[in-house]
């Protein structure tokens, strides 16, 4: 009882910094709870909002409603069994989660990933980026009231999920990226289907632009709403499209290329003002760039193994199990105990659809990671909500939240 009331007391004691000018006796601020169950919070985000009429004076994000303890669970699994767990953090960017984690472990092991695996990773990462942006586009258009966009975006998303299913057997949380490479080479027919998608996607993206960007209402709602300058964003640790919309061309794919991103020719879309319209445009332009990257990766897909040929780390091919005793021993050892990773720490950052996904892995020499931490961009970017939406209308606040595109699974982990 005392504990609970204490907690309630503290919750009530949350103060709001802003005191609107000229407040007389007749003025009253309205405190509103957005969420955890609210259609526009993209999950279970809770926002304590102070309103003066339609204008929003202060907002406090309260998070943790889908805290799953994934980092703790990952400490309980051996290195390669932690991949599916880690993938479930940011559930719209599962390839990125797996890539950051595998990259960190590979760095600790000193593995060199074969070029074909790197290219396959790039193909899937970029497909995942398109998929994530499509979900973002659909849901934020829904938040803005343009309901049909949702169906159009999910139509293309299903095509991508079909490709994922083809290469890995799952729609979501595919566990395709492995430590040392990818689990399987792409099946026959994958390239053809992918090519069909790549031919289709830019046309579809054009259609989205026709529907949304030529619409006066939408332009009026996005232009010059809730801008935030680059300096504040950098101080808040914001990365990804939000930062690029403010004019900072910071993209880890260019800045510190990983997984052979340096071999592809692509551009980084950059905004100028940093308002909602720029955020929208940057993400929309990224759809085209990702298609370009996939096209190049598909055309230049090198021959070779799809996973590192190190029996201590990767499972031996299935056919070897019947003939080779050694392979059987390795298989048994890997499946039961897993491989050991020499002591050390690593922070492996990559550029995801929402910003910098950085996986910190600490190895203590055993077969299980001693600490897995994901620096999730949604978590950090969410802090920019309050400075962005201060003194905006409720509708702009919803639009901004959609443009920030937080994935609550990534925020709470």
């Amino acid at each position, binding site marked *: 009882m005392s504990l609970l009331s204490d907690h309630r007391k503290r919750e009530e004691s949350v103060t709001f910094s802003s005191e609107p000018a000229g407040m007389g006796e007749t003025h009253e601020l*309205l405190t509103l709870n957005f969420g955890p169950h609210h259609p526009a919070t993209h999950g279970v985000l809770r926002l304590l909002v102070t309103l003066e009429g339609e204008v929003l004076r202060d907002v406090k994000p309260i998070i943790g409603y889908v805290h799953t303890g994934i980092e703790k669970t990952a400490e309980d699994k051996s290195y390669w069994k932690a991949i599916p767990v880690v993938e479930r953090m940011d559930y719209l960017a599962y390839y990125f989660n797996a890539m950051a984690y595998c990259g960190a472990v590979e760095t600790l092991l000193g593995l060199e990933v074969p070029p074909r695996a790197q290219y396959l990773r790039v193909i899937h990462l970029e497909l995942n980026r398109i998929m994530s942006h499509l979900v973002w586009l659909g849901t934020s258009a829904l938040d803005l009231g343009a309901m049909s966009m949702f169906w159009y975006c999910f139509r293309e998303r299903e095509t991508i999920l079909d490709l994922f299913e083809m290469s890995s057997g799952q729609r979501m949380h595919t566990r395709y990226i492995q430590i040392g490479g990818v689990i399987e080479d792409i099946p026959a027919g994958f390239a053809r289907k992918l090519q069909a998608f790549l031919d289709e996607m830019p046309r579809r993206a054009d259609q989205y632009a026709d529907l949304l960007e030529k619409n006066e209402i939408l332009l009026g709602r996005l232009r010059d709403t809730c801008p935030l300058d680059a300096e504040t964003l950098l101080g808040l640790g914001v990365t990804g499209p939000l930062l690029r919309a403010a004019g900072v061309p910071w993209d880890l794919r260019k800045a510190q290329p990983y997984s052979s991103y340096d071999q592809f020719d692509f551009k980084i879309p950059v905004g100028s003002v940093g308002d909602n319209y720029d955020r929208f445009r940057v993400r929309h332009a990224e759809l085209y760039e990702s298609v370009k990257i996939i096209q190049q990766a598909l055309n230049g897909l090198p021959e070779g193994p799809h996973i590192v040929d190190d029996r201590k780390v990767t499972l031996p091919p299935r056919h070897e199990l019947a003939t080779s005793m050694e392979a059987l021993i390795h298989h048994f050892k890997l499946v039961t105990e897993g491989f050991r990773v020499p002591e050390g720490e690593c922070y492996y950052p990559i550029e995801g659809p929402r910003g910098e996904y950085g996986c910190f892995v600490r190895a203590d020499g055993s077969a299980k990671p001693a600490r897995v931490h994901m620096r999730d961009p949604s978590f950090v970017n969410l802090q920019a909500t309050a400075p962005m939406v201060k003194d905006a209308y409720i509708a*702009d606040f919803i639009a901004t939240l959609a443009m920030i595109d937080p994935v609550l699974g990534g925020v709470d982990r």
Partner: protein
Amino acid sequence: MSVFADVNYFEPWWIQILKAILIFAVIFGVLPILTVYERKLLGRFQHRYGPNRVGPYGLMQPLAEIVKFARKEAFRPTTSVGFLFHLAPALSILTAVGGLALIPWGGVQNILGTNVGLYGIDVSVGPLYVFALAGISFYGILLGGWASGSKYSFLGSMRAAAQLISYEVSQGLSLVGVLITAQTLSLTGIVNAQRGMWYVIPQLCGFLIFMVASFAETNRAPFDLVEADAELVGGYFTEYGGTPFVAYLFAEYVNMMVVSAMATTLFLGGWLLPFGIHPPGWVDPFVVVAKMMLFMTLFIWIRATLPRLRYDQLMSFGWKVLLPLATLNLLVTAIIVVA
């Protein structure tokens, strides 16, 4: 001065009652089909089928929903304001239904030797009557939002108050042009005045203003701020479930029908057909319904396409664009008619 328009025939009282019942029954038979129509059409806009499993072509879908809602638990939030909470949806639906009485479905017909007007009543102040009802129906929304005792409902009803008042002015002004040209306030009179030319041509500006304002008046996209899903959960009916919720939904659809009928009557020549085609009298209601469906489809099309306006955009559009335009339209029409 008589309230009723000058009619040159006498209707027995039982025909009045019969007509009332008939209009009521037909409209409430058509309404559910309209919801299915909206859902199926929306589905087609969105690359899917829409309801097609419950009954033939999904036509039983609304029946299932009505029965379901009717059987829902009766309920009132503890913070709500007693009887107002129950009164509000009733007010909403009653005023909406009241508007139906005005719709002229056809001219005066000779049925079995009696002269019968194919409309509920023909008032000499037709448009005013409709506006009066629309004004009252807004209380249904305001009271409902306020009496719910929920902040989201409250915000929704506040928006409704501002929105409905500001767009009703433009809507009213856009009609005056028509009234001046027709020089009558009787709706049948206005239709008959359009025998030469439908008012949509001389009063195009007025027509457009009327349509935009009608979208706002009926709280349909892109003016659905009042019930904006993404912002206010459900707006003024957030706390309503079961039958009162259905009442609100039906009120919205009936309002859509009334507005479509008004647009048909005032601008599209009611039951008249172009090119001098004069079908027999019993076709008239079908012509009106066909023209109304045109507007309904427009309502749905707009809903599938356009994003929602923001509150301040809505206000500035209403006061800074629509109202001056409507006034200008009125002045120009007045000058032309007088000159």
